[in-house]
């Protein structure tokens, strides 16, 4: 057992707990989201000991050197004095300007903002509502003159944020938006590299953004998109993707449905199975995987075994915190 010191008070830290557990148990409000070391909401800073390396995974090197760490991944072996990061990572405020159903359970939200804000299509942000509830969502649109952000929010069975967004979040409402994070975005200067994009459900949001980014930057090599859903009604942006495929000869769109017989408009099977069967060799390809964590894990391995280089496989799994 060790001791965590926060705001000058001592808290007993049990062996199997994270710093986040210890502080939440003591009724201290620490912002948090995914609790898997991904969303970086629970960023804290050590005032003395060097944080365990696992708790610094994914943080910028500059932050690591300043002993920042993720409380949900931090199980220190020695006493540690900790603090919330003094300066919040540049949050901005954005106002919902548009809300529209894309499929049975996916809603498009457009937010507009005034402050300077930098992002790439495909990166994700944390959205925080009035009471502090926070979830990560991927950005579906390209940066431009219009200062907007587009998100596709899927309603989850017990999702507090997503249910609220679907039912009660109205145009005119303000949300806090974190800085854009993650490396799942288009890379300039690789126009000759073929791209395979596999997504399930609202994992299409970042992929659509990346595809639009690639096409608007005149990407030359093939771009293949496989979007999957268990049922036909779960597919969305079908017309947009088809029309892109008509306009750009190097873009190939493959909607996939796992629980229905193939028709003229979609293939049968899970998106990643279909995609990987279609492309026997991925050596030299860049691969983007977004959606169900299990699909992402499996496809990462398969894409790698089919020759894709580890550095060319990009995935921002959707971490769906229950509640």
């Amino acid at each position, binding site marked *: 057992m060790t001791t965590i010191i926060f705001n000058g008070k001592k808290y007993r830290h049990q062996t199997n707990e994270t710093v986040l557990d210890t502080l939440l148990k003591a009724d201290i409000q620490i912002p948090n989201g995914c609790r898997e070391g991904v969303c970086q909401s629970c960023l804290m800073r050590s005032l003395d000991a060097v944080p365990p390396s696992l708790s610094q995974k994914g943080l910028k090197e500059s932050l690591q050197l300043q002993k920042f760490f993720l409380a949900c991944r931090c199980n220190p072996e020695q006493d540690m004095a900790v603090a919330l990061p003094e300066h919040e990572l540049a949050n901005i405020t954005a106002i919902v300007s548009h809300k529209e159903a894309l499929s049975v359970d996916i809603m498009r939200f457009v937010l507009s903002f005034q402050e300077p804000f930098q992002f790439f299509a495909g990166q994700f942000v944390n959205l925080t509502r009035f009471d502090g509830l926070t979830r990560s969502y991927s950005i579906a649109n390209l940066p431009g003159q219009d200062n907007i952000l587009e998100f596709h929010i899927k309603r989850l069975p017990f999702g507090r944020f997503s249910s609220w967004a679907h039912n009660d979040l109205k145009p005119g409402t303000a949300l806090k938006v974190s800085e854009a994070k993650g490396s799942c975005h288009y890379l300039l200067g690789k126009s000759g590299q073929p791209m395979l994009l596999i997504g399930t459900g609202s994992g299409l949001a970042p992929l659509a953004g990346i595809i639009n980014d690639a096409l608007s930057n005149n990407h030359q090599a093939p771009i293949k998109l496989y979007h999957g859903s268990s049922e036909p009604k779960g597919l969305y942006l079908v017309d947009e993707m088809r029309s892109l495929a008509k306009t750009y000869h190097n873009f190939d769109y493959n909607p996939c449905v796992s629980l229905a017989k193939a028709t003229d408009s979609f293939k049968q099977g899970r998106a990643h199975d279909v995609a990987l069967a279609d492309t026997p060799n991925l050596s030299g390809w860049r691969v983007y995987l977004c959606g169900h964590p299990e699909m992402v894990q499996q496809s990462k391995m398969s894409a*790698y*075994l089919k020759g894709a280089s*580890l550095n060319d496989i990009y995935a921002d799994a959707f971490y769906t915190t229950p509640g």
Partner: protein
Amino acid sequence: MAESLFNRLGGEAAVNAAVDVFYRKVLNDHRINRFFTNSDMDKQIAKQRAFLTMAFGGPNSYTGKDMRTAHAKLVDIGLNEDHFNAVMEHLGATLTELKVPADLIAEAAAIAESTRNDVLGR
């Protein structure tokens, strides 16, 4: 002092190039892949990186005790001489594929070989 093997091989860049090739060989080898498939791929890759860094005589060299502990669970589920030989084979083949000169390959193999008793828990 002579330049270290790690630096002569090309340092971290060499590890990065080798890990891609090496881990793919290991996963495709039915004799040993069962030891490597049951955990998260990113974690496994981090371990492969540690393995190669060590075989290349790199900075965070492990002590014998660590090697023993790291593989103790695997010994419990049957890790043996043949598996060790298979890994040595892939290490050699990886470096050959990356066109590393034979004398450097021999040095790296000797470092890996020196852990045999610890890895196999003897």
